[in-house]
């Protein structure tokens, strides 16, 4: 499975790209494969408070809805408006155009506690059975 080395990962299958004090968040390639065709993304409001481990967005496939959890706490500073009309970007480019939101981390060191790519691959493999 595809999990870029430069990203951090949560057990709930979100990826985090740390950019100084902010973090860009999306769902992993493994997660989008499990969901299959994404048809709708419910995004948080800019300014909303994200609490680590709590649902902050939702990704819907035809068959099911899946919560997106905030991997770290902070304030939502940007959401990916392109997903409103093209939610399938989550399937086609989960680590790029398919990013979901950006937050200003309340504790910029918190991301260090997330999994690295190797750890995440093992975690995802254990869940795919």
């Amino acid at each position, binding site marked *: 499975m595809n999990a870029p080395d430069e990203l951090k990962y949560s057990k709930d299958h979100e990826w985090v790209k740390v950019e100084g004090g902010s973090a860009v968040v999306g769902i992993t390639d493994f997660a989008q494969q499990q969901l*299959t*065709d994404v*048809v*709708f993304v*419910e995004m948080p409001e800019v300014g909303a408070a994200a609490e680590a481990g709590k649902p902050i967005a*939702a990704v*819907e496939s*035809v*068959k099911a*809805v899946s919560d997106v959890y905030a991997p770290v706490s902070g304030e939502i500073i940007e959401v990916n408006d392109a997903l409103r009309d093209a939610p399938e970007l989550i399937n086609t480019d989960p680590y790029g155009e398919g990013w979901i939101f950006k937050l200003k981390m309340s504790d910029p060191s918190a991301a260090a506690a997330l999994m690295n790519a190797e750890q995440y691959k093992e975690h995802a493999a254990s869940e795919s059975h």
Partner: protein
Amino acid sequence: MPNRTPLYEEHVKLNGTIVDFAGWELPVQYTRLIEEHEATRERAGLFDICHMGEFDVKGNNAFEFLQSVLSRDLSALKPGRCMYSTMLNERGGCVDDLFVYMKALDSFMLVVNAANIKKDFDWLEAAARGRGVSLADRSGDTAKLDLQGPQAAAIMRSLCSADLPSRFGFIAADVAGVETLVSRTGYTGEDGFELYCESSRAVALWRAIIEAGSPLGLLPCGLGARDTLRLEAAYSLYGHELSDDISPVEAGLRFAVSATKDYTGSDVIKKQLAKGAPRQSVAFALVERGVPRDGCEVVVSGSPAGRVTSGTFSPTLKKGIGLALLNSPAASIGDSVSVIIRNRPYAAEIVARPFIAYRGGSK
């Protein structure tokens, strides 16, 4: 331990994502739900429906018996024709919805929902006591495969030399060497067939259809596509639009109830037909992007009016659609309503059913 259909190994070979459905291990999808849905709308889809139940009802009094326990007037049935009906309790609620096949004047087959096989058989047995009819549950040794889509007839013609039946007709025929009951019916809103054979012959029939259909674009389809297809056609699903506590009049199935004959539940049904039912099933479509789901509350003119019974994202219409059971007087076609999804209201409009009209024609 969940049940497996005779086609379980085929699903595993095809990489199907297996889920538990009503106690059966069945594929929810093989590749992508939307791809399977589109294959059925545009070409052909093949579905494993072996989990459904089949009962034989036989005897000189079988017709009168069925007239007394099924809500629809069966007088129009002839040998070789089948009909959709509901079977009601005394309160007018649905014990089940089913298809009744007239094989001969004294021989019928009922096709019932998988989750209701035991309940239905017990119900029928109790009702049949002293009525001079014989009942047999054939579910265990009967396989059912649904072949649906605009190419379904061409695929059948390549496997079966008999004249194909017209809509709601059925024949006994040799299909690729398998003795099959070929019924021109389905649950997708497309032309197609429901095929019944001995369980031991299911794999042979399945493989023959895939081989003949693949060049025409046929895909094996999972339960996911079955659900989106039936919902676009606004067909009821037991446990959602219908239950022991929902009448067929409430569910919008007036065509399936008789206003004249007497049958179990008919007192309640006749009252509802004359004076209106307490609730009414309506079809709605979201006017903003979103996906309504079973259980979401529907708000009409600022007040809670009922709940979504089935909802999905329509792969054909590319928007959220659903059926909802609302308190009467329910909203009318064209009315604006809200559907509450994860605590947020989404704008929706009441629309005509079905979402997608039957596209098969009558032949």
